[in-house]
């Protein structure tokens, strides 16, 4: 994967403006949400629950796009699409999501 910036600085600038004093709260909320999502994804895959896996990936995709993490959102979308058609060979994708999320969290922490 090309070394793209994990977060979109323009989106984050807008968020900063909108959130004002709550910006840090937003970042904290996102990271704690995301930690939970990663755990959930692994669990759902272990249970082979395609429906729930799809829903979880879908929700995670939405908040990633809102926070300005487009690559992470795209990875989620691929899991969502596969789960939708019952393809559960998404283990490598989940690994990729985990790596990308690490990068995102680092970028957010450095703001």
């Amino acid at each position, binding site marked *: 994967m090309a070394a793209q910036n994990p977060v979109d600085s323009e*989106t984050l600038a*807008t*968020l900063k403006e*909108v*959130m*004002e004093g*709550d910006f840090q*709260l*937003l970042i904290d*909320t*996102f990271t*704690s*949400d995301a930690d939970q999502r990663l755990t959930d994804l692994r669990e759902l895959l272990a249970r082979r629950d395609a429906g729930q896996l799809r*829903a979880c990936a*879908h*929700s995670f*995709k*939405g*908040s990633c*796009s*809102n*926070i*300005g993490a487009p690559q992470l959102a795209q990875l989620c979308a691929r899991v969502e699409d596969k789960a939708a058609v019952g393809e559960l060979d998404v283990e490598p994708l989940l690994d990729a999501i985990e790596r990308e999320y690490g990068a995102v969290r680092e970028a957010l922490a450095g703001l």
Partner: protein
Amino acid sequence: MTQSGQAGLKVLIADDTNTDRLILESIVKKEGHRVVSARDGEEAVAAFQRERPDVVLLDALMPKLDGFGAARQIKALAGEALVPIIFLTSLTDTESLVECLDAGGDDFLSKPYNRFILQAKIKAFNRMREMHATMLAQRDQIARHNDHLMQEQAVAKQVFDNIAHTGCLDASNVKHYLSPLAVFNGDVLVAAIRPAGSMIVLLGDFTGHGLPAAIGAMPLASTFYGMAQKGFTLTDILREINQKLKAILPVGVFCCATIVDINFRKQRLKVWNGGLPDCFLLRCDSGEVEAIRSTHLPLGVLANKDFKDDCKHFELNPGDRLYMWSDGIHEARNSAGEMFGEDRLKATFADNRDPEQLFEQILGRVQGFIGDGERDDDLSLIEVKVELPQGFESRERDACAGEGQGLVEWSLDFEVKQASFRFFDPLPVLLNILVEVPGLRQHSGTLYTILSELYSNALEHGVLGLDSKLKSTPQGFSEYYQLRAKCLEQSGRGFVRFHFSHATADDGGSLTIRVTDSGPGFDHAAKIGGDQPLKGYSGRGIPLIRTLCRSLQYLGNGNQVEVVFCWDNDSWGAPP
């Protein structure tokens, strides 16, 4: 107030993802709105019930109850109010979007959220919401006004029906049709049997529609019934109604009317038509139709001094039928907008083989012609069949038999004494009584002339003994009045006595007036002999009275004079 302006709306945000909800809350708050938050569909419905927000933002996929289900419940709870629901979704397939709309969603907002787009959507939907609220309020107001109007109309119709009742429209020789709310189209139909036994029918059509058209019908009906019952003639009634309507109706509102008097005993018809379509007289023997044209202006247009009350007269035979209608028949329209017209009406008469069926045929043809076309709802039609006096029945006729018929049998003595001569004029009092006599009202001018001549003769020449010759020169004229004033100041036992008696005939009557004074009298046999005109006996207006009355004679020693005034309700102009 959430109604005014974009600021200060209450916005419900339902999203199960904390990050997304946090962002939305901030965007919405930044615009000055208040936020109510929910984390799933069930919470969203409960929050809606509790907070009644103005705008709802719903995530499509949520635990417990998803956005679609929540939207359906919220729309049901909102009832008639418009609560815009904007779906928050990153779903992009058409199927999902259609599902959002089906559930009652009004719009979408996709992730990542764009602050400006969301703000624009909230503004737009709030405008729509306000317009919808205004429309509902106005709709309710119109509905309330309409209810009120219908209620008023029902009351007004009740009052009108009580005044106009049905008169003798129930008579066995009468058929009539009035559309249910015809009174609010200005149509009025009244009929009564006069004490003398003739039937008077009036069909009127006021200009305009609605209450302004209906309001004139009240005084018309009450005047009609009040007078017809007392035995006043068609002309008396006509003039009284005209004068009333002229006085109370605004300019431009008037009443086209036909009024008929059918004398069953004499088999005669009197018709006055002012502005209504021709009425038809269908002859029983020949089957021919005579059209009776309008020859007058409608009621309520002319002042009474210019009003013409001359009628058309027709001889009748039992079995003849009279048809009257308002222009609602002629102007009834079919779905193509074409009018029924007089030709179709005439054709209906021409096609008829059994006059007994004609009334129903006319009505049937008109209603068949209208078909599904727009109903103007002001069809008014009446048929009166000519019978012999005992050939028909009516409740009203039975009811009025033996009832008061106005002043029909009476006599009156009235004496003015010396002390009253200077200040009191007896004529208005006497005239007031005389016009209560059926048929005499139209002659009140003539009666006034007769009475005033007789009274001044009795007072000035009889009681005061003034010589009328004095009045032949201008000098003498003023001397005469000085003398008169002086005499009136004297006290004494003088008097002038009036005696009236009255006899009715079938369609008229005679009034005898005898005036006696306290004076010494005069040699009337020599001075006013027989039919001789006045011989140098100036004043006294005797020749004038002779032309107005059937007879005039002096009695006793000349301090008594008796005149007989006769009238005939069937004739016009000066009495014989």
